[in-house]
Each structure stands twice: as structure tokens, then as C-alpha cells.
């Protein structure tokens, strides 16, 4: 049963890590704007070439 001592230590360290990560994320401003990133991720990385007489229809 002594293994429980180790498990307790592990569980505390694990939970503490999550707490720390949460603080870091909050300090980094991850919870301040939760609308823009949702739009930002949809942008293509490279603008298409200049030839665009036809508006691009997204095929994917």
C-alpha cells in the first residue's frame, strides 16, 4: 500500500502543473479575446496569385 504515497505525490504534481499552465495561459491573454482567433485560423497562408477575375470559391 505504500505505493499510494508515490501516487499522491504524482497526483499533486500533476494537478499543480495544470494550475500553473492555467495561470500562464491567463497571463498570456489567452482568455481575453475568444472571437478573433476563430476567424484568424480560416485565413489561407499565402495570398493567391494576382489573376482573379473570378472570385475564389472555396472548393475544399
Amino acid at each position, binding site marked *: 500500500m505504500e505505493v499510494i504515497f508515490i501516487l499522491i505525490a504524482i497526483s499533486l504534481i500533476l494537478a*499543480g502543473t495544470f494550475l500553473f499552465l492555467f495561470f500562464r495561459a491567463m497571463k498570456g491573454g489567452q482568455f481575453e479575446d475568444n472571437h478573433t482567433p476563430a476567424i484568424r485560423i480560416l485565413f489561407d497562408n499565402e495570398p493567391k496569385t494576382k489573376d482573379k477575375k473570378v472570385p475564389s470559391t472555396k472548393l475544399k
Partner: protein
Amino acid sequence: MSDPSKIVPQKEISTCFHCGEDCKDEILHFDGKEFCCTGCQLVYEVLNENDLCNYYDIAENPGLSQKDLSKRDNRFDYLDDADVIKKLVDFQNGAETHITFNIPLIHCASCIWLLENLHKLHEGVVSGRVDFIKKKVQVKFLQDKISLKDLVKLLSRIGYEPTINLADTDKKQVQSMDKKLITKLAVAGFCFGNMMLFSLPEYFSEAELLGQGFKKTFNYLNVLLALPVFFYSATDYYRSAWLSVRNKAVNMDVPIAIGIVTLFTYSLYDIFILGNEGYMDTLGGLLFFLLIGKYYQQKTYDTLSFDRDYKSYFPIAVTRLVKDEEEVIPLIKLNVGDIIRVRNSELIPSDSILLDGEAFIDYSFVTGEEVPVSKKKGELIYAGGRQKGKAITLAVQKSPSQGYLTDLWNNESFDKDKNHGLESLANKISGKFTFTVLMIALLSLLFWIWAGNTSLGVLAFTSVLIITCPCALAMSTPFTLGNTLRVFGQGKLYLKNAQVIEKLAKIDTVVFDKTGTLTAPSEAKVQYFGEPLSAESKSLIKAIVNQSTHALSNRINTWLEGIRAVSLTGEVEEFTGKGLRTNYKSQEIKLGSADFVGADSSGLPNGGNLVFFAVEDFVLGYFFIQSGLRKGVDQLVDAVQKEKEVHFLSGDQDHERQNLKRVFGDNIQMSFNQGPSDKLQYIKSLNASGKNTLMIGDGLNDAGALRESSIGIAVTDKVTNFSPASDAIMDAGMLYKLPKFLDFTKTSRSIIKASFGLSFTYNTVGVFFAVQGLVSPVFCAILMPISSISVVLFTTLTTNYIAHKRGLKEKIW
């Protein structure tokens, strides 16, 4: 099916490639695309050169019309001023500068894309990052390669001109409060969860199975985990309790602090001296629930600002004339006696005398009236108005902060915190509550000492203090108010904080501003007098006013709804502030002011605007246009009047008194000719006579009254638009619901009282066992969460259910 009257048989309409608006006046062809103005075309050119035309693919016609923008080159010169730069930037080192711009024009995905690709437009820009909801963009740039002025110019060239106003130069940081609370909540949650895990075996006698070593370890771990809760998460309660005791009052936080301290010290004693399990898990849970309640109460509306004063409205710079040379200076450096020039759509920054030019001042932000007022040379123009039309020259009479309007903010009522001694329900009972609890605890201690069992007496004493720690009691207020706040938010009444609700419940006097609050431009009342209009005249007038964006044209246009516009052959010329002119069937048609058409306006009704209709200089008749009452306002005032005193304040002349009396009855006290300071004084005298006042206004001229009243509600047609500092912001369309909202604040109070009753029941049960010394950690660990959660459930359910039943909420959830 399209309505035939809506079809304007004109030349083929094409839409602008940039902004998507109809090209009315001219069509510019460039690169195979059509543009409505040179501004839009310029933006396209800039983007095209830099390979950024992806902008046009992300959203359809993402741009905004560039027609009405001022194109003056030197208008950003004040951004060269080192003082101004220092105040605006967030961060600056030897190479890089970070600055956050407010760009209200951000409205679609394309905007985000373009503003985050600024570095492709100019090599000096490092990056841009958009916050879509707050309409802000943070730009990092290298100041050696691009100056702040050039950056702002670049932004305005691509159609995203930032608004920089006086308030930006003295920033305040208020956000960190919220973050601290979340951190404390997270710490309490983390510790509570782990302590619960370590305590559970105890409750099920499993620890016996594991042996003594485990039991001790678990208890010590609990002590360890309780330290951050006691020394960090709970600090707000100690501070608040201490402050309250020092002011010789007892607020809700006093019994909480007593409870927390007793729990902690007794648990330490229990664990280290007696070798028992202590109450540390209860302590963790207590703080966790309390902080959740606190957080729930602090609902904030990010996009709204409740603290705006004239500074967030006034420009940061002004054009000064020195020996006929223009120079742009920061507003703070403007002195009395300076000569300034104000151009189209620019704001008059200080009370000044008109020296030259034709002034048509739009005071819509100040008074709520949107029809521009014309001023003659030598007349005094008050600050806060916006010039419509050509540039004017003014001589400054007073410094910007000392004017007729801005002097309001020098009034003492803006210095003191807005606290009229209205105690919250919770604080009211907490004094008696604390006293009773201490009495019971002492009596049980004395009783057991008298009975000869001192150790049981100490146990009973601490048990009473622990069990009565008013967790459930303290949570009834924040959750009821938090729920009410959300219900009101859904009904488009946005409150600054939860305290406003309790104050609203006490209101007995309601003061309305008239212009812009009770009346609305969109509900204009148009009457026509003179020779009856033939069908042809009507459709002719319709066609003329169609071409103008002037407020009065719009009103006549709405009045002529359903009339088919005739097709005009000639151009419609607009003379700013005067009227419209065109040729129709080789006759000169004029529509406009008396001077413009050559009419005599003496003896005609006043109290509204007159628009004359003349053919070949012969006046056929005139329109009499008054701003009408908003829909439902008469029922609103009737409903409010039943329970409360109603006052009207108006900056106008009192010619409408009879009119208003007819609609609203005789019981309303009306005051006319009220300037900004008069309104403030009016509220002050009401307050002095012991009234709890609710002021409802809309413009900057109501700012003083909104501030001085117990509660000030700013009414606005678009909540994200400018509104003066207030306790609440309300969508004008929801004004008719005001009586319901006021009623609901009283219901909230009843709900709070009912949940007080509920938590008192729990406390009585707890105390019954506590005085006998029967309270165990298990008992605490069960009773405490049950009481808290049931109170939370009760308040949440009843608040939402009643709100739904009263029609304040569409769905219950």
C-alpha cells in the same frame, strides 16, 4: 415582388467594388472595376500594389465608403509631438514601439486579415493583432523606419482610420481586478478539490484500513493545501471585514472572516494537538463557493463603457491659425484667444465665437437633436457641436475644460464616489446576524463551563462560529443579482454592476430628459400646410429629398412613403444648411429654409423645423417637422407614474408644454430651458429633499444629472455608440420595458430575502447541533455544500422563471 414605387427609374446602378455602395454621383473605372469615389479607388490601388487583394475575397465588399472622410494632409501633425506619443504608446524601447489603436470600422473577417498583414504594406511594421470584439488593433512597429504619424496615415489610407481622442492620453488600468479574482478562485478550487480527495477516506472509515501513517499524512497534506487558501484566496474578506469594523459597521464579510479564521485555527489545533482530522476541506469549499459567487456577480460588458466623459469624445488635436498659417496642436495646448479652424464633420473643441464662415452645428451628441443649428458671425458656439459644411474660423473664448458643457465635469459631484449611503440588504442584516451568532456561541460556552465540561464548551463555541459562517447567506445576494444582471442584459439594459439593481429597487422619482430620450428623430411628426400638394408635386418632392442625406430630407422622405419618385432630368444641388434646388420641366424648384426660398416665416408655428416648398420663387407651402415621441412612451410614462413621481427636463423652449400635457397628463413636473448645469442642480435639489432619483437621459448635456442622480441610465439607439458616463446603458428600443425592469428589481429583493430565509433554516439546524458540541467534520462537509448549492439553485431558478413569466426573457434558460 418588388414594390413598384421603390424602383427609381434612373441610370443603371453599379456598386462600388470596394465598399459595395451604389455609385450615385460618379463611377470611376480602374483596373476593370468600378468605384464610387476616389477614396475607395485609392484604397484599392494601395492594396493592389502590395498584392493584398486577398482582402476582397474573404468577405464581400469589405470596405467602407471613403466619400465623407476628411482628406487633409496635416491633420495628424500632432502625432509628431513627443508628449502625445508618450501618452499614446503601450511600450517603447530603442527600436520597437507597441501601440493599441481603436478602430471602430473593424467589422468583418477581411478587416482582420488586412490589419494583421500590415507588415506587407510597410517594412517598418512588425505585426498587427486585432481584437475583433473590442475593435482594437495592437501594432508593433520600428520607429526608425516608420513614425507614428506615418503609421496612422497608412491606416487611414487603407480605410481604417483609428479614432484617437483625449481620453486615450490619460489611460487607466482597471482590468487587473478581474484577473486577480480568477487567480484566487483557481487556487481555491485546486486546493478544495485535492483536500476533498484526501478527506474522503476519512468519512468512509477507509483510513483505518490504510493504517495510522496515511491518516496523519492526509491531515498534514490538508494543512499544507489550506495555507494558500487561507493566506491568499481569502485575503479580500479580511481586508473588507477590517475596513468595515474600522468604520464601526458590520458588513457581510465580518462574519465570513470570523468563520474563516475560526475554522483555520481550530483545525490546526484539532490536527496537531488532538490528532483529529480538522475542517480544512470545509474551509477550502467555503472559499471556493464564496469566490464563485463573487465572480458570478461581476458580469462585465466588454464592448460597453460606462465611464466616458467629454474627453473620450473630444479630439486630441486642433488646427490653429497663427498669422494665417495653419498648424496642428494638441488640444491641451490650446489657449483662450487662439484662432482655430474647424472643418466639415470636425468637432468644436471649446466655447468660441464665430469669426468667419457659415456655421451649421450638429449637436446630436450633446442634446440628442440631430438637425444642425445655423449660427451667424459673432455668435457664441458651445463646445461639443460638430460643424457640417465648409470650414469655419473661430476665436477661442474658454479653455476646453471650462466651457458651458465641459464645466459640468468640474462639479464636485464628479469627484466623490457615487455612493448615496444605500446599504445593501446583506449588509443590513449582517450586523444583527453577527451579534446573534456571537451571543449564542458565548452562551453555549458559559453553559458548558457551568455544567463542568470546559473542553466541550470550547468545542461548542467554535462549532457555532464554524457552522454559522454565512456561506449560503453570502451567496444569495451575488447569485440573485448576477442572474438579474444577465436577464437585464438580454433585455438590452446593461448595468454597470450588481449594486445598481438594489439601488433601482429603491427609486421613487423618475426624471426623463425630453429630447432624444422621450422623443426620437426617427418618429418625426411631419405636417404640411399651404396649397394642397398634387400627386405630381409629391413625387417630385420625393425625388428631390431622395438625393439628400440631411436629417430633414430623411423625415420628409419617410412621410412620403409609398409615393413613387418622379425621374429627374436635372441635377439636384444641395446648399448646406439652406436647402435643395433643381430644375423640373424647365421650372426652378426649391426646397429649404425661409431665407433660401425667400419666404416670410414670421407668424408661423415654432418649436419645430420649417421646410418651404417653392416653384419659381413662389412659395406653395411648408412642412412643419417636429421630433415625435418614441413608440410606447405614453404607456411607459403612465405605468411609471402610477408608483413614482415623474419629472421632465428639457433644454428646449417651453412651447411644447401644452402638447406634452395633453399626452401625459397634469401630474408631471416639467422644466424647460434647462442647461447642462441646471439639470444637475435640479437632480441635486430632488436628492436634497430625500428622493431617490433615477435620471434617464441620452446626451452629453445630461451627464451631470446622470452622475448626480442615485441611478443614471443612458439611452442610446446603438449601445456601442457613444453614451455619457452612467450606471446603466439602455437600448432606446427597449425603453417601453422600463416599468417591468423597475418592477423586477423589487422582485430580486424579495428573492434575496427568501433565500436568506432558506439559509437561516440551515443555520438554525446547524446551531442546534453545534451548541451540543455534536458537530463533526463530516457533518460540516455535508451541510455546508448542501446549503450553498441549494441557495444557488433556488435563486437561479426563481429569478429566471419569474423573468420568463414577466416577459423579460424569451426562454427560461
